[in-house]
């Protein structure tokens, strides 16, 4: 069952930022991806097995690391660094391109 979460981190300018994410189990293990659409940073949402952006309808596959399927995003979802333990999944970092967009 996919789980929505929010992760808070401190940007390089010293300000905090909260990003939305989704944790999902895949055959390769649990995966966490950012649910900001790479196009305009709208928050994408689950639509059946896929992630769909409500702003411009880009589609992504959460089972394959947020792979881009269609739409103006033209790339996969922003990637997160994370650790998985028995107690759960902990986000430890965000893709540099995402941080740049949030500065």
């Amino acid at each position, binding site marked *: 069952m996919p789980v929505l979460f929010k992760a*808070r981190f401190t940007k390089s300018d010293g*300000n*905090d*930022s*909260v*990003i939305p994410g989704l944790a999902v189990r895949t055959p390769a293990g649990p995966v966490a991806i950012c649910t*900001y659409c*790479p*196009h*305009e*940073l*709208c*928050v994408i*949402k689950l*639509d059946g097995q896929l992630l*769909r952006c*409500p*702003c411009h*309808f880009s589609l992504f596959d959460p089972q394959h690391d947020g792979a881009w399927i269609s739409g*103006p995003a*033209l790339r996969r979802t922003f990637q997160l660094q994370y650790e998985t333990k028995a107690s759960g999944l902990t986000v430890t970092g965000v893709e540099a391109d995402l941080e740049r*967009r*949030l500065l």
Partner: protein
Amino acid sequence: MRWAGIMAAVCTACLCSSPTSSSAPVTVKLYVAATGGSEVYVIDVDTNAIIKTLNVGKQPHGIAATTDGRWVWIATEGDGKIHKIDAVHDVVTANFNLGPYQQEMEITNDGRLLYTGRFMDGCYDVFDTKKGKVVAHLPVDGSPHNVVKAANDSRFMYLAPMNLSPTGADSAVAAKYAISRGVLRDCDGKPKAAYTTNDKIYVADTLSNTIVGTIPVGNAPRPIVASDDGKRLYADIDGFLGFLVIDTKARKVIERVKFPLVTDDEKTTFSRAHGIGITPDQKEVWTNSVNHGVVYAYDRTAEPVRLIARIPVGASPYWVAFSPDDRFGYIALAQDDAIAVIDVATHKLIKTISLPKNSGPKTLQAVAVPVQ
């Protein structure tokens, strides 16, 4: 049965008394472009009920109504057409193929010229509604998205092309990708070799159908709106959580209005401004913080403008429209497939109109349609 009769009589009185510029009886309908699908929803503003669903074509986006409310034009992005709707009977009476990625539209006050943008082609088209064909092309930088006029005088159209992506670097990457696939074209349909980002609003003269000036705004303009007298433009732009006030005569930005961030969520969560409108009485300008779920209302009767209300809508607000009688503000909630109805006098959210799943409502316009 007796109650039903009384209610019907009351409703009929409401419809006939809706104020417009003339005393002819009208009924006010809200047209909603469901960009996630192929439909335009027609909503009765007195009951907030969907009274007609028009299947026009893939990804409806632009809406332009003639000033007499008789005709509504819809642009469909997915199949590159514009559609003429008889607003009295809510039927599509004609459609024209203008090329892919049709976006927002605006029509001159005489109903003759329709200005419409082709997102991937860097081109606005001028469509003559009488001749049924495009009579002029206006090439621009960036990706045509929005166009507005002043309600009192449609001599000038203000064209607001956005970029392929909200940041310059990302836009260059997106352009490279799009060029490699041959989807970026010029006005004549020839593949583009290069893409130029846009940071200005173009001024088009509808008498000559030419660009007669530009207004630098510092980044790609997003939704814009003109005051009825044409003296002011208000613009959302990329990279700025707020809006700009523009003097159209001087063709320059005179004020940058930043939204106040109140909650921790607002201070730490990225958002952007999208969707802007002026109340029909011309007193207030409203615009949205999308990811924060807040609509802001500013008093525009004096400058600098003054914040008078922040209206949380509990979802992502995207486009703005008002009922002609100034009673209701309508906010498209694309993410929630719904329309928020806000009481203009109290600035309170009073109702949410649900639309079908994945309809993705975007642009919307309330039209006073003559009763026949």
